[in-house]
């Protein structure tokens, strides 16, 4: 079935089987491999993308359900490449907000969604919001620090 959607602001038209998950479309058909598959059971949040501006788990959404909508993946955060990271990516870099990096794309997409709703979140709000993102390395401490620093940088960038 033919679907039309915008990915990282670029409109595309693509043919998918209805049983294709959004994450499968992104990774396997379109090569947006920044979106990871961790648990594949909507627990871990490594597959987080934005759908119509809201964070969702792309392992638990059909690609056909995205027809007519817009999807943003982690590749869409830094429009000018590695030399010009998104303020949230820069904050994760500076605050050691990752170790192995597997969960990081999901953490970033979750954090950017949070700051879009709540530009100055408290530590408690960040920890509450990140319930849907699991990290097996860091113990979350530096991730929370990164999100708070990233939120400040995003406010300054406005």
């Amino acid at each position, binding site marked *: *079935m033919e679907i039309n959607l915008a990915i990282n602001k670029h409109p595309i038209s693509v043919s998918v*089987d*209805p*049983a294709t*998950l959004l994450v499968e479309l992104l990774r396997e058909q379109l090569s947006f491999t920044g979106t990871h598959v961790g648990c*594949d*059971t*909507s*627990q871990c*949040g490594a597959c*987080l993308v934005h*759908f119509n501006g*809201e*964070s*969702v*788990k792309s392992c*638990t*959404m*059909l690609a*056909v*359900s995205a*027809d007519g909508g817009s999807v943003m993946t982690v590749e869409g955060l830094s429009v000018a490449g590695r030399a010009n990271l998104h303020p949230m990516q820069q904050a994760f870099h500076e605050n050691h907000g990752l170790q192995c990096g597997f969960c990081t794309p999901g953490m970033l997409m*979750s954090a950017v*969604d*949070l700051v879009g709703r709540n530009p100055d979140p408290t530590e408690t709000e960040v920890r509450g*919001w990140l*319930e*849907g993102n699991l990290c097996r390395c860091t113990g979350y401490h530096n991730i929370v620090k990164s999100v708070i620093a990233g939120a400040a940088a995003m406010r300054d960038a406005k």
Partner: protein
Amino acid sequence: MKSFAYLKPETTVAAADLFSEHNDAKILAGGMTLLPTMKQGLAAPAAIIDLSAVAALREIAFEEGALVIGAMARHYDVAASVLVQTHIPGLALLAGQIGDPQVRHRGTIGGSVANNDPAADYPAAILALDATVVTTRRTVAAAAFFVDMFETALEPGEIVTGFRIPVPEMAAYAKFRSPASRYAIVGVFVAQTAGKVRVAVTGAASSVFRALDVEAALQERFDPDALNRVSMDPSGLNSDIHADRDYRANLVMVMARRAVSAALQNAGQGATKGQ
């Protein structure tokens, strides 16, 4: 996942027609239960009827003393709705505690209630608030809707379209959740509507149920201390790695006391707001 025909109607009538035409179809609301079930091969429908384009099913309104919530209102929509926060704050708080933010961006009240997971949060609210379930064919009182584990009064081809929830004098939910799944190990929703107290328990047994002894005590005096001499019979309650039945029976009473305290507090705030 086995392939299927994907159907996306734009009206409730079209959805109902499609559901009658396709014998082996499943309704897709938010997909938070259906898609994992299909991925595990536990369901393999020949057709999926996606309700996400039926805009009318997402509306939340206040009519004649009741909140009217469309089946496709997402947990996020219910939690963030000023109407729900104003009229039944305990329901908005319940919706904001389901799963995690990304689950709340997809999961819907209609999907949760129609699925009737024994540990889901919404069935406790629908039952305790004495809501009416509206379907494509009829209206069903909450007390007659929840039958047993994953079983409801829905007939083949019938779709939940929304809920009519009379605004209570007081209501609140208290949940002891599994930190991994965020489902209720025990959740208790307490409500007083038109002078009548109803207490519904989720997570503790094979299906949501009303705790009649707890209701009777609270009917006499709506206060956490009114429950000091009430206990819950553990026989028939769930026993698993998360909690054995005695522990769950005790949790029901603890959550009931917390819910009563929260309901009194919610009502107090409502009164202040109204002045």
